[in-house]
């Protein structure tokens, strides 16, 4: 829970920078809030603001959805962490973000994994909304989150959560080769596709 709290603070800061950037780009307050509540996927929100401002709404939708397509395989993998029953599914699906998946996957299947998924999802959702509103209110006085090193904090946290899964040899091979493919493909392909290409690492496990 303390771990989730640390990530919550970081998400709040990034949310604030999203709110500030979106307002500075000329988006109305309702649109900025609506994006954070209903899209709730940071990368695609930043991307959409950038593309809408330069007058390319179709690209904003396509690029954003390409970036978020990874949520489908994530959902397949962690459906058990969300639990059963329609309400849990409908609400829990909206809380599916990289970090809630990572926290859930770091634990063995069972009630502990469910608690990890829900507490991470709810905490980060609330932090993202509070951050967005703070960014709207504070505007330009929100500092650059890169100066705080937050851009290094997220991948480091992700790696810490992944390590337990990487103890399994097959998973390690699949994950590391997938990550390599994604990094090499990043300069060549639009954002979102390289990460999806990491699934090609599964070919290593498929043979067995």
């Amino acid at each position, binding site marked *: 829970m303390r*771990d989730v709290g*640390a*990530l919550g603070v970081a998400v709040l800061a990034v949310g604030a920078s999203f709110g500030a950037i979106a307002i500075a780009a000329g*988006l109305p307050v309702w*649109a900025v809030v*609506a*994006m954070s509540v209903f*899209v*709730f996927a940071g990368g*695609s929100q930043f991307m*959409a603001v950038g593309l809408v401002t330069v007058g390319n709404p179709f690209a904003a939708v396509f690029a*954003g*959805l390409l970036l*978020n397509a*990874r*949520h*489908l*395989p*994530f*959902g*397949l*993998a*962690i*459906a058990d962490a969300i639990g059963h029953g329609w309400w849990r*599914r*409908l609400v829990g*699906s*909206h809380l*599916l973000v990289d970090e809630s*998946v*990572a926290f859930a*996957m770091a634990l063995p299947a069972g009630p502990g994994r469910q608690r990890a998924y829900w507490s991470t999802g709810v905490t980060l959702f609330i932090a993202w909304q509070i951050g967005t509103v703070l960014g709207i209110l504070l505007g330009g006085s929100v500092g650059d989150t*890169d*100066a705080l*090193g937050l*851009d*290094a*904090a997220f*991948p*480091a946290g992700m*790696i*810490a*959560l*992944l*390590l337990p*899964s990487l103890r399994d040899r*097959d*998973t390690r091979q*699949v*994950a*590391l080769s*997938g*990550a390599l493919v994604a*990094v090499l493909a*990043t300069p060549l392909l639009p954002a979102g596709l390289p*990460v*999806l*290409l990491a*699934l090609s690492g*599964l070919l290593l496990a498929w043979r067995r």
Partner: protein
Amino acid sequence: MLIAVIVALAVGTYGFRLAGVVLRDRLDLPEPVHRLLPMAAAALLAALAGTAALTESGAFAGVARPAGVAVGALLAWLKAPFVVVVLAAATTAALLRLLGIP
């Protein structure tokens, strides 16, 4: 126009999220595929961490960020608490930038 963008993005993103969760039960996946699903998630998370650590808008991310992530990863490997990992990564990157290293 703006509202159409937000609705399309929100509906599409939620669609991806819900589709995965619902399909898991609806599709009668064979056992080998079940075994692959956690590996698929691990591959995607590793790819997110790798690309976020090393690249920025399709180009190399500079020195400060990868160095910060490397410090965090090393601490994680040494079984340091999660909070320490995250803080050390951020502090390393922030200090390097303070020293003028991008």
